[in-house]
């Protein structure tokens, strides 16, 4: 993986000094809160309900053992001993003091971690396919390009005061694992017939108040022009995106109002006028970055391991773990291990400092020192030798992280909601905990099969509710928590926005409503059909009838 060199390290040192000075000016009264707020946000510091929250960037979701361990240390030293992994593959600490921020930044910078541009109206931390470098389908390692973009977008003088926040994701496999169409810019790597690398560019997706799936504005952008083309998109947006209404300031509104074709035309015109050679990173630099993402030294191993097969036969929990959490690796004899942060009853995405330490140990010992964050708020050990799988399983089990529920009902995405977030209208975590607990039984969960439930505590949709197979949105009805349920959404290859089923449901009745939806699915499904496919086939009526039957 990419390790920060002396230049990157000096950038972090200088950044820490800058932010330390900005905090000093604010506390001394030399800046108003209004002037300071965008500065602290661009350093990932929010004022939440109970304290400051610090959002730490995890570029392309990739962490070394030392970095993960340092996050655990930061959480233990300056927070309450846990952190919350997010749908943007970052980590949030909930109990931060502003006066500690300089020390925290300094500590993190030692291992190449930072909070640069994790909030604010700038280009945010960029995400990539969580299985990059480990899956067989990808046409290239997208992290090479994301790292080039990370550098380009960091402290970009022209694009740090955009109309609104800006999120970019890059996938590299035909099977989209980045939710590219719900991003401001989503990209998918492709290889042209002549072998040249490039990107399909989608612009103007997003959730929130007005959800859109981003249209493709260019089928094939030659990879070497990535940064100049991004510059053109950003410039069109920076100049013409709306600034008069915060709810209409995202690029999706500009793209929708101009139309994808006209937006694309403006981008192309700007791009043609740019000095591309000055902006695009030279091949040598791409090669340098690429070398840092070279595959680890995989051994030649048999594709089937007898000890693993024997343990699968002997241990049902292990067999379930293999079935649901373990994926094929591009190299025979290796696997991708998903680490569920969704043990039923726990807070989705939360991880304690002790767990971070233990995962770091496992990554160092069995996983070529690499962990990933998945936007489903889980972690990944991307390169585990099959022969080490029993030991990794045992290690995860020992820290309560071997729940075999990836993709199942209890693998719920939930934002922090009103338990922490200053913007929330309702809680999200307790709703997730209750649903997950009700469907914790493995037999029940396996019978239901793949089901993606996503919960947001407000319309900003950090919990991606629009693209949940079942989406749940918290709303405030005269001081009571109510939840609007939608069905049929997806952010992946079968991207679609969910349909709202009807009036919002009172908090205490939500889990029953979810059960009614699931029972309807069981009644209506054909053999092997997923929940979302049954819904898309039979439509809203039976689901709606089941949920609202009691009420009438």
């Amino acid at each position: 993986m990419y390790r920060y060199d002396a230049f990157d390290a000096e950038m972090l040192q200088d950044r820490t000094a800058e932010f330390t000075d900005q905090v000093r000016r604010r506390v001394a009264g030399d800046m108003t809160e209004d002037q300071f707020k965008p500065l602290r946000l661009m350093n990932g510091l929010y004022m939440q309900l109970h304290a400051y929250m610090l959002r730490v960037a995890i570029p392309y979701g990739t962490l070394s053992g030392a970095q993960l361990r340092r996050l655990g240390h930061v959480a233990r030293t300056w927070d309450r001993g846990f952190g919350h992994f997010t749908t943007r593959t970052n980590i949030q600490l909930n109990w931060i003091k502003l006066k500690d921020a300089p020390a925290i930044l300094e500590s993190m910078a030692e291992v190449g971690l930072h909070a640069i541009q994790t909030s604010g109206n700038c280009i945010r931390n960029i995400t990539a396919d969580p299985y990059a470098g480990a899956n067989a389908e990808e046409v290239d390692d997208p992290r090479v390009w994301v790292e080039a973009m990370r550098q380009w977008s960091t402290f970009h003088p022209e694009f740090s005061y955009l109309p609104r926040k800006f999120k970019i994701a890059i996938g590299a496999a035909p099977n989209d694992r980045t939710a590219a169409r719900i991003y401001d810019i989503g990209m998918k790597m492709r290889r042209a017939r002549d072998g040249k690398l490039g990107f399909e560019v989608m612009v103007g997706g997003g959730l929130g108040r007005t959800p859109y799936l981003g249209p493709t504005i260019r089928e094939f952008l030659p990879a070497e022009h990535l940064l100049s083309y991004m510059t053109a998109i950003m410039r069109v947006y920076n100049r013409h995106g709306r600034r008069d209404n915060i709810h209409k300031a995202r690029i999706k509104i500009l793209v929708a109002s101009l139309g994808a074709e006209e937006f694309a035309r403006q981008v192309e015109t700007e791009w043609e006028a740019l000095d591309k050679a000055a902006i695009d990173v030279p091949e040598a630099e791409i090669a340098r970055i690429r070398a840092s993402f070279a595959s680890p030294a995989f051994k030649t191993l048999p594709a089937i391991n007898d000890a693993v097969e024997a343990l699968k036969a002997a241990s049902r929990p292990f067999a379930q773990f293999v079935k649901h959490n373990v994926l094929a690796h591009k190299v025979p004899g290796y696997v991708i291990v998903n680490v569920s942060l969704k043990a039923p009853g726990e807070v989705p995405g939360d991880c304690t400092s002790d767990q971070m330490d233990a995962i770091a140990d496992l990554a160092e010992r069995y996983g070529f020192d690499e962990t990933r964050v998945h936007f489903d708020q889980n972690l990944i050990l991307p390169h585990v030798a099959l022969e080490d799988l029993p030991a990794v399983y045992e290690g995860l089990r020992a820290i309560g992280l071997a729940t075999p529920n990836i993709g199942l009902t209890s693998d719920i995405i939930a934002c922090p909601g009103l338990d922490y977030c200053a913007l929330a209208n309702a809680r999200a975590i307790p709703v997730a905990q209750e649903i997950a607990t009700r469907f914790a039984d493995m037999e029940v969960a396996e019978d239901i099969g793949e089901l993606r439930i996503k919960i947001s505590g407000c319309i900003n949709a950090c919990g991606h509710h629009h693209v949940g197979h079942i989406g749940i949105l918290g709303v405030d009805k005269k001081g009571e928590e109510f939840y609007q349920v939608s069905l049929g959404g997806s952010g992946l290859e079968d991207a679609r926005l969910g349909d709202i089923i009807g009036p919002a449901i009172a908090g205490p009745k939500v889990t029953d409503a979810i059960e009614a939806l699931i029972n309807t699915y069981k009644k209506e499904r054909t053999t092997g059909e997923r929940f979302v496919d049954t819904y898309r086939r039979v439509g809203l009526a039976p689901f709606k009838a089941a949920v609202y039957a009691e009420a009438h």
Partner: protein
Amino acid sequence: MTATVSLLKAVTGNRLADGEVVFWGEGGWRERFPDASLFADPADADAALDAAKADPTVIVDPYIIDVRLDGEFPVPTSFRERVRALGPTTHLDMGKQAEGGPILEAIAAASGAARSAGRSNLIKKR
């Protein structure tokens, strides 16, 4: 069921240096809601808010909240403000709720009521 009357105001905000939820009370900012000054006259609350705003290096975005009496205990009217006064409902060992006491217990037991008017105005202003 105890009688519910909505008639009081309090002033709250988060402290600049550490983000702590604080309430305007006797002798300045206090960390516990039971120590908050309660104003029966909205004009007094406004005056306290003005005083709070004069202290921008101590407090961030102070605002007025509604407080009602549940029986003898004052309770923030909005759910959001009750969460602020207590701590996250998912971690009962964190935040101010860990200290306990009759007023905090009354807040934890309270339900219903409207959103924080003060906060809504603050959001609209932006």
